[in-house]
């Protein structure tokens, strides 16, 4: 049977992609940022996920103002890195996992989630930067990816509670997939940042660190945070953190935190990164689920 074994949270800041694409990620200047992913690069080589469900938001790249889906799931065969205005990132094409993606999509819709099915789209830095930070520079991404795009551009975003519930439902879908594969769920975006207005540049380190603390066991508390509170406390773009809640909801209640990294600033943003492993994959009762 398919199994979700681990979850990963990380910011998806475009600058990180630029640095890597220029070949500068080894510079001492950027060490405080990139050193925090050394553990991750080793860890992922051991974990060898077959499929990553990569939760991110599209930044006015493949979705414009015409159609704005709250939750869009990629069922396509592959996804090209998008040209975001300065040429596409020189990273590999992202291979989809269409059979599993359709299985999840059918299950989610039948569980009452109103997914937008996506069969063709390009993917922007929100999706490719996390791949680069985790897998480094590769000729081919070593796993298949199911993109799950969440609207965090137009108010309102889905609530934290809804995102946590979506994670639960993704796990229920994966649990019913007969193939024996290793699945990870990644939540990306955040942490605190605000890209507009006189208040631009807002960073709330205390809030970010408390979020990473609470995510392990007190995620219900996090799920109750309103978008207005996110904006007030952690900036207009701070609500991207609901995407980490989808990742958290897809894991068991009992998890082990394997790694954590926090750094300010990366351009306008606080960088956060966390890795969880499901504590005991054999214990599988309802109480043990997030």
């Amino acid at each position: 049977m398919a199994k979700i074994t681990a979850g990963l949270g990380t910011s998806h800041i475009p600058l990180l992609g630029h640095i890597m694409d220029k070949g500068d990620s080894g510079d001492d200047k950027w060490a405080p940022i990139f050193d925090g992913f050394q553990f991750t690069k080793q860890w992922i080589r051991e974990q060898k996920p077959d499929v990553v469900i990569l939760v991110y938001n599209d930044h006015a790249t493949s979705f414009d103002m015409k159609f704005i889906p709250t939750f869009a799931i990629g069922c396509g065969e592959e996804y090209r890195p998008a040209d975001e205005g300065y040429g596409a990132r020189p990273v590999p094409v992202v291979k989809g996992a269409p059979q599993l993606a359709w299985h999840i999509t059918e299950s989610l819709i039948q569980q009452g989630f109103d997914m937008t099915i996506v069969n063709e789209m390009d993917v922007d830095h929100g999706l490719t930067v996390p791949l680069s930070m985790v897998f480094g520079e590769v000729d081919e991404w070593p796993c298949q990816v199911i993109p799950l795009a969440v609207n965090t551009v137009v108010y309102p975003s889905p609530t934290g509670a809804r995102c946590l519930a979506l994670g639960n439902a993704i796990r229920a879908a994966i649990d019913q997939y007969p193939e024996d594969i290793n699945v990870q769920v990644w939540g990306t975006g955040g942490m605190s940042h605000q890209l507009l207005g006189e208040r631009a540049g807002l960073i709330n380190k205390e809030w970010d660190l408390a979020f990473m603390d609470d995510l392990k066991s007190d995620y219900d508390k996090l799920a109750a945070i309103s978008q207005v509170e996110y904006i007030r406390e952690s900036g207009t773009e701070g609500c991207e953190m609901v995407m980490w809640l989808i990742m958290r909801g897809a894991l068991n209640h009992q998890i082990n935190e394997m790694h954590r990294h926090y750094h300010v600033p990366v351009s306008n943003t606080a960088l956060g990164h966390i890795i969880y492993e499901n504590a005991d994959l054999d214990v599988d009762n309802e109480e043990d689920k997030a």
Partner: protein
Amino acid sequence: MNNNNKPYSNIPGTTVFDGDMARMGFHLNQFCMSLMQASNRTAFKHDERAYLDQWPLTEEQKNAVLARDFTTLISLGGNIYYLVKISSTDGLSVAAAVSSMTNLSLEDYLEMMRNGGRSPEGNRYVEHAPSEEKT
């Protein structure tokens, strides 16, 4: 500006891109989106005004684009993720576009970020009534 009487209207220096803003900025943002294509960027750079005139923007919106006045563009319904298509076309960083909306120069803004960013202290609530604070 159109965030009045919303639960977020008392957050200082912030415009939430909600339905009212999205309605106001629909064509402005779609214009920005068009700059994702190289041929459109070339056409825009060749004659900005002529390119803008192909879009049903208000005169105010067009002038703010020509002036690269991001503060005004936000107040006229622009969304930052769309607006950065303009600054990318200009070859500017996101930080350059973003800092132009603050009262800091790009250098001072970057220095603030290096020092941990703008503190939330004193930046959670407007000091006066929302109607006085919002422009």
